[in-house]
């Protein structure tokens, strides 16, 4: 015998939830719609594999896909060891009184705005890379990847720490009871158990790296060609959107940014589902 107000409230909450879902789906739908003329003419695959030469009528996004892959994967390479090591510290290796403050410092680090990483990167790191390697302008895949790696490390570290926290304490107590030292406990008990959580963290951090705009926009040079080495400038899908947004609304160039948007959306969606799938599999195990 639910009273009217109850029902109304429940409907209201449901409506909010549905609205939020609608927004999520709506974003994808809108972008597909706006990019449609280009998709129809070119075919989605052609777009993906063509290079970007607007003066010759080629509006493909391959160089940008390559740029995104190069910069994000390289940044993961930088961030993974840093994050793993830091999470080890916070979860076992550092002496007990240090662990709490360490974790709080890392949490604070996640709040540093991206634009500031880019700002300092331009003035501090770019000239350094240019002079150290004696090659190029300093604005290249390497610079962007280094800064991006440092930016996603605190977030990745927190994901790993969460994974370690979720280990049942009985495992840890058992290891202690058997006389394991800090590092032994970490390597032989904690790491294998938290494997899924660590993979989880890596995928989520990759998502953040792929979705970042400013660092690549400010530090990677934005050239529209597939980068041939880490010292080459490159453009990511995200930076491409920021650069071309300024152009003519009906031009094929403009529509190409919706293709970028669709690629970005779909790739982060795939990563999200992958994480959820792995999590469900994991639940079956423990």
């Amino acid at each position: 015998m639910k009273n009217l107000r109850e029902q109304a409230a429940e409907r209201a909450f449901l409506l909010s939830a549905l609205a939020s879902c609608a927004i999520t789906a709506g974003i994808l739908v809108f972008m597909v719609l706006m990019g449609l003329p280009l998709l129809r003419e070119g075919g989605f695959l052609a777009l993906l594999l063509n290079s970007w030469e607007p003066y010759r009528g080629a509006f493909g996004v391959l160089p940008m896909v390559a740029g995104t892959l190069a910069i994000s994967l390289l940044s993961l390479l930088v961030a993974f060891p840093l994050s793993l090591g830091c999470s080890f510290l916070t979860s076992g290796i550092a002496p007990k009184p240090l662990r709490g403050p360490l974790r709080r410092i890392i949490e604070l680090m996640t709040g540093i705005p991206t634009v500031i990483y880019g700002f300092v990167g331009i003035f501090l790191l770019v000239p350094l890379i240019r002079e150290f390697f004696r090659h190029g302008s300093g604005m290249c895949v390497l610079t962007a990847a280094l800064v991006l790696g440092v930016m996603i490390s605190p977030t990745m570290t927190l994901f790993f720490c969460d994974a370690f926290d979720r280990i049942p304490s009985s495992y840890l107590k058992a290891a202690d009871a058997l006389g394991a030292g800090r590092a032994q406990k970490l390597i032989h008990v904690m790491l294998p158990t938290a494997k899924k959580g660590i993979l989880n963290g890596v995928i989520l951090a990759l998502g953040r790296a792929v979705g970042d705009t400013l660092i690549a926009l400010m530090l990677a040079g934005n050239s529209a060609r597939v980068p041939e080495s880490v010292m080459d400038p490159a453009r990511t899908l995200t930076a491409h959107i920021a650069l071309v947004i300024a152009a003519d609304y009906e031009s094929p160039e403009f529509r190409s940014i919706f293709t970028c948007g669709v690629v970005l959306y779909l790739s982060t969606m795939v990563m999200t589902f992958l994480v959820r799938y792995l999590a469900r599999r994991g639940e079956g195990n423990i």
Partner: protein
Amino acid sequence: MKRGILEKLTVWFSWAAGLTLLSAVSVLLGYLLLKGHEALNPALIFGETPPLRALLLRERVFDGLFPAVAGTLVLITLSIAWAIPVGISTGIYLAEYAGGRVKRALDAFFDVLAGIPSIVVGLFGFASAVFLHRHFSERIGPCLLISSIALSFLVLPYIIRTTQAALEGIPRDIRLTALALGATRLQNIFLVLLPKSLSGIMSGIVLAIGRCAEDTAVIMLTGAVASAGLPRSLLSQYEALPFHIYYISSQYSDPAELTRGYGASILLLFLCAALFSAAYGIRKGLTHFTLYRP
């Protein structure tokens, strides 16, 4: 023997990683402070206009950060205003009403929403603005309204997740007590559950505020411009602090402007650090307050 080496290496590795990360970030902060500390005075914000007159809106500020700071503050307020009702209601629905498959489906949607790159949200906002401009009203274009709505989409997942987690974290006995005494579900939610999870919800809101303060990708596509003065109306373009920093970094016209850019970065950093610490403090403080109040 071998085992000992592996352990030693692990310890070394961990400390090396920790120190590298900490020093990288310290270098970043130190560099900013070094280059920007001389810019840290009222002139940074108010330029050559006397601060009091600027604050009372009697005189315009041209060479200072005041319009950008004001723009950011207004933007944050609006975005949070849109996001809170929808976010909290959705969180309540997820925690209290949804079951089984519906919950899993909704969960999936919000995970996807949380993962969408900010520039894609900005692109959506921009495209919507153009669409509305063409088909609804000539007066709508990229502006404060569109920016704040787009930004609210960005932070919606934060609020939904923290509300859901906070509500679900309430122990079973507290959940059932009011119901056992005859309260309706709604009364239970509003009189017992929400107040108990307030600290969690609040810290989620503060995190969302922090996200709004630092975001650049969304606003640069939906209405932030290089020069606009104080935001006049919802349909006007505006300045914002992170966009201002980005703009200066790529096109500063003289060393004074660059120093202002460093100053602006320090300001933004303090703002985000303060918000973050506030979130932490709220979580700790409210918990302490609610648990230890007699």
